[in-house]
């Protein structure tokens, strides 16, 4: 089943490491306490950074909202790539499903923002179910190619079904009603930004529970050694499919947020480029760490904003060089690098147990 089975020595080392971390996290109460404290601090830091963005850049809140929407996509990608070890280059299909579902629902009279986010999440989850069912049949290269083919197929379908999606012109002309009946989605994007920030923090806390749960541990185990997990009596496929659905819901919510804030859904939201870029952001920040996903998104998108305004080709050279450097120098991304430089850093290394 596996392309190459790992040597006995390495698999034994990995498993004993994993087992000791399980024992620590379940039996040592003090450890759990410090971990909870770290996560609370982490969430507070995110909230403070978000509020700082609101006060420091009041003129570019639209961009910041876009960053939040993409951060949700990268978080969802992290669930699949970082925690399950399933390489995909087609995750924007789930993001786009959420965006288009929210846009279409809004055009047809459902304008309440919270409902629209839920609709987007549901559409993303459904798309995740389909994508997972197709992708998880294969392994390795075939899996990667399937993910690309799926996102391209979704792209062509969205382009073709212009009666529903607006085709290459994009889906426009919908306007969500005010949040809680009072806060308008205004031109400056204040409501959209704060709404997005709260959504991001909520999703982040939820995902922290998901990845720390026995289910999350099982996913990480599958990433390390699927054969061993199967031998333990767990079914691999349903577990991964469940993670795919959760990931789809998160990506769909991100897509819906993007649709609400810009009030237009373009074909680029189901593109291979967005999928590849989100993978780059994730790797830049560090695989298998929810903080890494956020850090990578913020750094990537702010640099993109600055450099590509000067010359888009300089931007491509820079991203390319950065990617090569990350692969050669810091396989764990910036998060991993920071963890290595400052081993006692409070937010690092808590959920990167699966790194090898």
């Amino acid at each position, binding site marked *: 089943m596996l392309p190459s089975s790992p040597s006995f020595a390495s698999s034994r080392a990995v498993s004993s490491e994993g087992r000791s971390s399980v024992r620590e996290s379940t039996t040592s109460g003090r450890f759990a306490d410090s971990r909870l404290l770290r996560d609370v601090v982490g969430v507070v830091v995110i909230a403070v950074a978000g509020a700082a963005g609101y006060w420091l850049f009041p003129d570019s809140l639209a961009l910041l909202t876009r960053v939040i929407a993409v951060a949700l996509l990268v978080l969802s990608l992290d669930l699949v790539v970082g925690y399950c070890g399933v*390489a995909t280059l087609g995750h924007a299909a789930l993001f786009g499903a959420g965006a288009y579902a929210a846009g279409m629902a809004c055009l047809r009279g459902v304008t309440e923002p919270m409902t629209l986010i839920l609709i987007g999440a549901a559409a993303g989850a459904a798309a995740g179910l389909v994508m997972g069912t197709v992708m998880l049949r294969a392994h390795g290269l075939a899996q990667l190619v399937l993910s690309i083919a799926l996102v391209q197929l979704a792209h062509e379908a969205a382009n073709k079904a212009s009666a529903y999606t607006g085709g290459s012109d994009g889906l426009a002309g919908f306007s969500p009603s005010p949040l809680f009946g009072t806060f308008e989605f205004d031109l400056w994007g204040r409501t959209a930004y704060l709404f997005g920030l709260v959504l991001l923090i909520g999703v982040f806390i939820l995902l922290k529970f998901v990845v720390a749960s026995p289910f999350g541990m099982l996913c990480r185990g599958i990433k390390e050694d699927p054969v061993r997990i199967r031998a333990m009596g767990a079914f691999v496929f349903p577990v991964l499919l469940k993670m795919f659905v959760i990931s789809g819901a998160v990506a769909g919510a991100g897509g819906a947020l993007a649709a609400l804030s810009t009030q237009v859904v373009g074909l680029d939201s189901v593109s291979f480029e967005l999928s590849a870029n989100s993978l780059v952001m994730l790797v830049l920040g560090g695989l298998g760490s929810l903080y890494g996903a956020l850090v990578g998104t913020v750094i990537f998108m702010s640099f993109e904003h600055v450099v590509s305004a000067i010359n888009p080709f300089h931007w491509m050279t820079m991203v390319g060089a950065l990617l090569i450097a990350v*692969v050669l120098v810091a396989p764990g991304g910036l998060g991993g690098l920071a963890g290595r430089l400052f081993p006692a850093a409070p937010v690092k290394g808590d959920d990167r147990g699966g790194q090898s």
Partner: protein
Amino acid sequence: MQTVFSIAIDAFAYGMALFIICIGLSLTMGLMRVVNLAHGAFAMIAGYIASYAQKELGTGYAVAILLSILGTIAVSIPIERFLYRRIYGSPELTQVLMTIGITFCVIGITNYFFGPTLKTIPLPASLSAPVDLGFRAVAGHRLFVMACGLIVAAGLWFLIEKTSFGIRLRATVDNAGMADALGVRTQVVYAVSFAIAMGLAAFGGVVGAEFLPIEPYYALRYMVTFLVVVSVGGAGSIPGALLACLVLGAIDTTGRYLMPEFGNFFFYAAVIAIVCIFPRGLLGRAQ
């Protein structure tokens, strides 16, 4: 009947152009186990060199092809030595990231030096004129591409099956450690086959420029197409790559002729179906 014939000619020529580019990728992926998404980037470098040679240096078509192949190989050797050699045997994700990075760098740097415009590679008069086959005239360039494709396929088959280099290559593929112990210099074998693959990419990029025009984002735009063709055919298999190129070329061309509004829809639907049924590709070997 006319339509069927012109679809067949176009599909065959397009398939052959794809084949010349993709067979190099199939070699690197099947033999060296590197998912090289930067393959199209090397074809793009070749296209830029050929265009530059013809427009600025005033050389002929044949000389431009030769220059572009040599230039691309010259560029690829240090890249193989310093970057690819570190990712042999790494997980797919690492290889994908590294090669996407190389692609981005190539796009950025080539467009910085040559300018972000569509690069044309003018055909000589002998190739642009239609050739009368007796019952129908066919563009000479189409016939040229088909001939090139067949020659490349035959030449590669001869190289791998009949020469001593081919024997060493196959030994390295089957068991690199054992081949090394028996005195095959595997590093050299890898470097030479990488150079051959890049040379083929360069040749295909220039010859196939009529079908896949050389433009600033060439490497990104066709990255997916090349990868898909190779995985459908089965990495490392020459007949597999040939079959995949002809089948996918036929599906793509037929779709464009008969239902242009669907774009690449049928192409990717066919890819998903084939990959689901044959996870190792049409003629890929079990590992």
